């Protein structure tokens, strides 16, 4: 009995080490690709200042400045794009044959998948944290009027963003696990990204939509991320925060399970 449980511990330890190894590598690569970090910060800022500022000059939504209104949506957009795009790295790994080194190691495919998710989520959360700080400063300066980010808001935002990024990274990895070329990956994901993004209500309120459009937004899992983040940051939302959190964690769990199967079936 003792020997058996010992063996089990060794096995668990080696899986944990494997996850740590994958994570270590993803972080190294992330920190080395400076241009990727810069782009992931600059693009959302441009959206916020130019798109938000432009429309905000003439629009406000139930008393909230438009720029302020879309700030949570832009955060979600940034996380959505960088998370799904993260899946292209598994295509790269296959292309440069590094995937063989990982697949022949004595760890399970599930651990590889988990390591990748943690890696991708770390990237996105670092990006989110920077964007939250920029939001905090812009709010204080009055550039985005009515945006007040404090410690509580930042921490709770990160919770919502964490569940969002894990599910979106999983989706990216599932697609990446089936793809032979980065071009193919890009093609498939662009078909997916835009409906998910535009239907999420990141850029408009969803309470006054015609029925057909409203029902589409309801089945978009990202809608609940946007709504949750809006509720956390602006205190204004469509659904109850508890409902938002249930949907996004539930969705995250489902796609992670699908992802582990996809990795199990993945070829070198």
């Amino acid at each position: 009995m003792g020997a058996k449980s010992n063996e089990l511990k060794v096995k668990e330890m080696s899986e944990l080490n494997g996850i740590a190894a994958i994570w270590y590598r993803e972080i190294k690569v992330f920190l080395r690709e400076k241009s990727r970090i810069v782009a992931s910060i600059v693009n959302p800022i441009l959206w916020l200042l130019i798109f938000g500022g432009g429309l905000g000059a003439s629009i406000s939504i139930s008393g909230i400045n438009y720029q302020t209104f879309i700030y949570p949506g832009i955060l979600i957009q940034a996380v959505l794009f960088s998370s799904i795009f993260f899946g292209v790295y598994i295509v790269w790994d296959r292309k440069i044959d590094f995937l063989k080194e990982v697949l022949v190691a004595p760890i399970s495919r599930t651990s590889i998948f988990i390591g990748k998710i943690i890696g991708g989520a770390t990237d996105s959360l670092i990006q989110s944290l920077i964007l939250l700080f920029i939001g905090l400063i812009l709010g204080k300066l009055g550039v985005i009027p009515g945006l007040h980010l404090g410690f509580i808001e930042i921490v709770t935002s990160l919770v919502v963003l964490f569940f969002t990024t894990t599910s979106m990274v999983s989706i990216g990895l599932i697609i990446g696990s089936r793809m032979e070329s980065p071009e193919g990956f890009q093609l498939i994901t662009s078909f997916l990204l835009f409906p998910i993004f535009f239907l999420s209500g990141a850029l408009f309120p969803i309470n006054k939509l015609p029925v057909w459009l409203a029902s589409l937004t309801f089945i978009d899992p990202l809608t609940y991320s946007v709504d949750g983040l809006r509720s956390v940051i602006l205190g204004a939302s469509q659904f109850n925060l508890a409902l938002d959190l249930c949907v996004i964690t539930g969705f995250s769990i489902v796609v992670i399970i699908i992802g582990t199967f996809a990795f199990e079936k993945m070829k070198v």
Partner: protein
Amino acid sequence: MPVIETYELRKEYDGLVALESLNLQVEKGEIFGLLGPNGAGKTTTLMTLTTLIKPTRGTASVNGFDIVKQPSQVRKSIGIVFQDPSSDDILTGYENLKLHGMLYSMPASLREERIREVLELVDLADRKDDMVKKYSGGMRRRLEIARGLMHRPKILFLDEPTLGLDPQSRENIWKYIEDLSRQGQMSIIITTHYMEEVDRLCSRLAIIDKGVVVAMDTPASLKKIIGGEVVVMKINNPDVEAVRELNFVKKIEIKNELVYLTVEDAGQNLQQILHVAGKVDSVEIHSPTLNDVFLHFTGREIRENSPEGGWGQRVMNLRSKK
């Protein structure tokens, strides 16, 4: 009990038969060679044995575990140096090794010690903090050999490990492989085009061609099958019939304007051969090599397609792909 045993292992790629019912055994502690020309199925054999691809039919046991039913146990027992580069070139040499150590759950202190040791061995200690991108093809090869050796697996697979290396590096690697094997516990399977590599390292080998094992034995016994020395002559119009008459000539083969004879006591009998064969431009006698053995079994030379284009070329292709 053999550490590796394959049972009618077969692999097809969309109808193309890469391995046809392969049967071979590797004993514990030996260095076993897989010798064969391009496309023979050497890499496919290794990929199947290391669980990276599934056999179409048949199976194999590696360290007592079934490659189809117990792949994770198999992976715990093995290490492999791939034929194609498989390191991450945006990481440094050191980081690639550290990552490997982590994947194999090596304790940090042991990991650092081994990293130092293998970097020393492949002479990369002073370049360890450079990104692999900046390595030459040969340096990258050496790094990956270092990586495969680092965790001291029970069974080590080396897919053309010294292809594209300079003689000095090759000699170092050979020495290290011999040392590892001499220390006892490790069994090593090595694929190669280089006959000298097999002669130098391997206690036994399998010659494989078109996915079939055509012969399996020690290098010495395989050479004995030839049954004499090999005489190679360049002759314009050889009198084949006259040569065939001589009873000490065991075998005649004509390839690319060269006449290959297998002759008993060639030193003594050469005069007589030259006398009847015709106007000889040049002649050469050697004891049988594995190349002759390969020729004997397949009717082709192992070196007909240049093997040298391999690794360096692939590194270049990969770079231009990016």
